């Protein structure tokens, strides 16, 4: 049995190695899309808020599985929500790409013939053109629910820790803090990927920017396909 300090260190280092070995491939397109979508704005605050939201969701999930003592039970309840979040993510990335490329079809697809814009078109338009950096916090909270193998693995450990704790509140606390340690460990890899996509020359060249937009549309479609297969 590992000491509490060793367990936190294990989760932190596990998050760090998994970040570079797994998250870059699976969630990298997401943070790259955010970076490209921000264009001339600094990515630092939006990325930090996104990660804060994501880690908060991990902590809540850690507390829930620790309280229940079973990942499989909680995961079964969350499956349809996760599928929905995955589809939303794919649609969001694809629309970000369409907006960046200037091919936004809202008027044609969602609008009506009288020229007024529909509720859906307005909602997406507001989301994509939102000026407030704060939107990345709820986005992180939501996208923290995306299905992810290493997060499930970390939650397994949180569930075990919860079962072994002498009192339920201690188990919940341990589950939450372990998941915070894991989430923090994943930040450097994703932040590095976002920073790479934030290079000045990348965003200042229209052709490159447009290619990035096309690839984002493709990534969005891949997310939707993965969600349907999930």
């Amino acid at each position, binding site marked *: 049995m590992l000491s509490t300090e060793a367990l936190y260190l294990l989760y932190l280092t596990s998050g760090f190695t998994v970040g570079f070995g*797994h998250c870059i491939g699976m969630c990298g397109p997401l943070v790259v899309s955010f970076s490209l979508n921000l264009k001339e704005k600094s990515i630092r605050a939006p990325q930090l808020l996104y990660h804060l939201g994501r880690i908060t969701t991990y902590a809540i999930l850690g507390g829930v599985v620790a309280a229940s003592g079973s990942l499989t039970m909680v995961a079964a309840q969350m499956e349809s929500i996760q599928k929905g979040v995955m589809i939303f993510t794919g649609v969001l990335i694809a629309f970000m790409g369409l907006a960046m490329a200037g091919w936004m079809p809202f008027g044609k697809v969602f609008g009506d013939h009288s020229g007024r814009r529909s509720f859906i078109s307005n909602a997406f338009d507001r989301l994509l053109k939102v000026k407030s950096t704060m939107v990345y916090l709820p986005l992180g909270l939501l996208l923290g629910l995306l299905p992810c193998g290493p997060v*499930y693995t970390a939650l*397994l450990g949180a569930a075990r820790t919860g079962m072994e704790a002498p009192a339920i509140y201690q188990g919940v606390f341990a589950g939450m803090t372990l998941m915070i340690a894991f989430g923090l460990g994943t930040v450097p890899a994703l932040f590095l990927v976002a920073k790479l996509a934030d290079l000045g020359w990348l965003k200042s060249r229209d052709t490159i920017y447009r290619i990035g937009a096309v690839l984002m549309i493709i990534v969005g479609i891949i997310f939707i396909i993965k969600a349907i297969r999930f």
Partner: protein
Amino acid sequence: MHPSSNIFKILLLAVLLLILSSSGNAGDKYREMINCDLHQGACTRNLSGSTVTLAVTPRPVKAMQDLLFQVAFSAKLPPNTKLPYIDLGMPGMKMGPNRVQLKSAGNGTYEGRGVIVRCPSGRRTWRATITVPDFGQTDFIFDVIY
């Protein structure tokens, strides 16, 4: 700016994004490594001159389900050997530490409970590495149903 420099940057961005988007979904090229069909029954592998048998129930073996891992050794483990354990992972993809600690069930058999998590990439090839501390380890590579 020289046109070739722009082309290089375009290619770089294209490669970066394509790698990012496809790396989690590159097809399960690791399926050819499978050396065990745990859906059908127990599998046996060599371990430091003896054999070790792994069975996982309930069958077929599904992800995100509570599983019982049973391990039997053909030879008696050396005295004072620490308890064996199983590390679950995917070949070629880091999934975080997922260890099933085994306990003696008598007659040279050990068992423990664990969960194989689901990878949204769709890849289904998993590896169970059985380790007997200070004695040896062996890999079972198998398919999991999602």
